[in-house]
């Protein structure tokens, strides 16, 4: 929250690195890199919310090579859900890296085969884990990814989300995953995407991050449109008002307590308002963020770094 320091901004520019943005996660990376399972486990034991556990599982799964540490931990601690959930998510990441984020028509049959093999491996770990520990949020969140990648269908993805939300009704990471599923690119529809985002925003308590789903849905919609139509979409008053309302009940609400997901949530609003030219609306989000940019959604632009700086300047006038 040192984002108002203009000097720091201009000297370092935005940091897209997760660990720069959330230094509390650095000990986790250190433990994982030194293949010290006890230290990894200790890090998780110190976390005070399900959202943090779930985010930390994603972080752990995102560290290259952790599958070896995790496979050993699964063997050594068969009753512990953490290593299995993290290993499954690691397999999903490995698979997705093979698939790449390209649209399906640009992915080869061999890439799809290998992608699906990794996802099936993950899914089978997760079936057992969810059967044993149905309230374990990281496992259900990873199962939303396997459901999407293996194309198990809209109804199945929604069932998984519902099973999770029966225990954790406003789990931000899972909401972000299901939003992808209900977008047209994964055989959903805009009606479903905006509907789900609205559902997340209105059902969650004031001040939670879930309102950002509204911004993420509009960003996805914008991405699908071409040229002037795209710009006009985010410039439009109905979308702006929708974004304003969502921001006010979520990250701009007085009850909002920033957590590890808040950086992503603010980035979504900052991005959506900025692309639409609503710099005044983007200002409080950039003010919160300072240099803390997130790859999603800025990676949707050709030059995330410059775009972030340009819009932040327009918003904060600095």
């Amino acid at each position, binding site marked *: 929250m040192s984002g108002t320091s203009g000097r720091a901004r201009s000297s370092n520019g935005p940091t897209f690195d997760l660990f720069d943005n959330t230094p509390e996660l650095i000990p986790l990376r250190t433990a994982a890199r030194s293949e010290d399972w006890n230290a990894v486990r200790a890090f998780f034991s110190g976390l005070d919310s399900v959202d943090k556990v779930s985010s930390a599982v994603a972080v752990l799964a995102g560290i290259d090579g952790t599958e070896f540490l995790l496979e050993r931990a699964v063997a050594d601690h068969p009753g512990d859900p953490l290593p299995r959930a993290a290993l499954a998510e690691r397999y999903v990441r490995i698979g997705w890296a093979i698939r790449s984020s390209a649209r399906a028509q640009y992915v080869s049959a061999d890439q799809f085969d290998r992608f699906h093999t990794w996802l099936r491996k993950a899914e089978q770990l997760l079936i057992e884990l969810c*059967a044993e520990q149905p309230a374990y949020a990281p496992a259900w969140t990873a199962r939303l990814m396997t459901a999407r990648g293996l194309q198990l269908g809209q109804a199945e993805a929604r069932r998984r989300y519902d099973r999770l939300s029966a225990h954790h009704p406003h789990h931000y990471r899972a909401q972000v995953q299901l939003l992808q599923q209900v977008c047209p690119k994964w055989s959903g529809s805009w009606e479903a995407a905006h509907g789900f985002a609205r559902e997340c925003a209105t059902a969650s308590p004031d001040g939670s991050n879930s309102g950002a789903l509204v911004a993420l849905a509009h960003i996805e919609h914008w991405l699908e449109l071409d040229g002037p139509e795209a710009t006009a979409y985010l410039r439009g008053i109905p979308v702006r008002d929708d974004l304003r309302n969502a921001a006010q009940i979520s990250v701009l609400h007085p009850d909002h307590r920033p957590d590890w997901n808040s950086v992503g949530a603010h980035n979504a609003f900052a991005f959506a308002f900025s692309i639409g030219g609503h710099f005044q609306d983007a200002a409080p989000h950039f003010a919160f963020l300072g240099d803390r940019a997130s790859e999603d959604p800025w990676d949707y632009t050709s030059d995330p770094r410059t775009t972030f700086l340009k819009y932040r300047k327009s918003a904060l006038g600095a």
Partner: protein
Amino acid sequence: MTTELDLLDGVLSHTTTDGIPTLYAPTSASEITAGLFFRVGRADETLATAGITHLVEHLALHRLGLSDLHYNGATANTYTLFHVTGSEEEVVRYLNSVCAALRDLPMDRLETEKEILRTEAAGRGGGPNHQMPLWRYGAQNYGLTSYNELGTWSLTAGHVRHWAETRFTRDNAVLWITSGQVPEGLDLTLPHGTRLPAPAATSALPVTPAYIHGDDGHVVLTSVVRRSTAATVFADVLGRALFQDLRQEGGYSYSAEADYTPRDAEYATLTAYADSLPQKQDAVVGGFVDTLARLRAGRIEQSELDSVRAKLLKMYDVPDFGAASLPSYALSLLLGHRILSPEQRRAELDAVTVADLREVARQAWADALLQVPGRGVDWAGLTLAPQYSQEAVTGTRHPSLEDDKVTLVIGAEGVSLLTPRGPVTVRYDAMSAMTVRPDGARALTGHDGFSVTVEPTLYKGVTPERIAALDAAVPPTAAVPMPAREPDRIPQPRKRAAAPAASGRSTWLWTLGLWAVGLLAAVWGLLCAVITADEASAANPEWDAVVGVWIMWLPLAAVTAALYRARRRRRG
């Protein structure tokens, strides 16, 4: 046997009637019910004789004709049951009549009853799980219920009489009567024979758990487990778990249930079923997989087990328990399943633990065959049941007249259909049946359930000589003569698969398009030529304009060429 039945003293009595083991126990009802079981059923037949037991059952009941008496017969996989409810005199008359008919079947009725069975079958439409037996067992023994009763076309009086004489014997029967004593006047004289054990099961599934694709709206699982008290409890627990997870919690299904049916002396078939709306079926499959995983993980509430146990224990408290339990004891005696006294059964029920149920859940999953709508379930660790044969035979090759990529092979060892995705082979030494049409068509089905249809009109060079060679190679017991088909029922080759859209109508449309665009291209081309010539002869030729008009001609020429090619492709 007798010592086993002694366990049931105080529950029921036992004796023999004309050499047939007989169980009886009194009832407080005004009428009595009796059942005569024979240890023969569909699983004892072959595909070529399928329906022979059912025919015997129908013929045995024919003489009873129309009466007000409440009676019937039933042919199951491993037994045939004749049962009746009425006064003592009526019951005696029924049983005597059935046995008299079995001694001397009314063969003058044979053709009529065969036709009745064929009509019955046509009206019977398979349930959502009717395919499961054939995928699990192939086209033999317990798999035969997936098939039509082919024998209703070809069986002769000699076949049927032999079947009755060897299977419907006093030594292969058990009688039960809900009465304090065996009624006077029974004459159940039947030929001597032997008690036949239930047939051994074959397997058509190299790997389990396996899955197959089925119709929209239904998810079905079958599994074969060892018969046990824990497994009967498990079936109820599974049914309740599916109902809770798929209907009450998710609202994905309307029906969700499970069933436990003894298959033979040692094994039982567990069946679980859930229906779904088409837009919810992904979730039904996912929920089904998760419910089974939950039971395998042992996440079963003690209260669930307790309420299922209480429900099952209640069955021992019904009035006339002895009479009510007669059919089940008679069937155990018939199949050679262990006989337990009610006290022993109750003690076993009391002893079932959650850990026992988890063990059954694991066995059930390990042997499961799951039928799903839509996409496959390899993601859940199941293997697709074999869709193609391991190998093809060699022999004369007959290309399909419909599809360039398909070839029929008629060889010395069997027939194969070679398709781009793999061969389908039926070997003569592992054949269940071959239907034989006068027009030369042959449909061969192997023990493994794979089938190949040889239609001389659909493959090149399937001459009467090749059909004769086929007929000579197939074991005579597998051949099922069928009546001639109406000429319009004999298939004719459709147009080549390579040109699926080929039809007169679409070709003339393409021709019309070609003419329209082609004419425009020709006229414009001519105009271009005139302009070019005109400009070339001018003092200051405007070459920009000339190039411009030619560029405008290019797309017209390109579309003309494309239409020409497309039309030619369609004409094949």
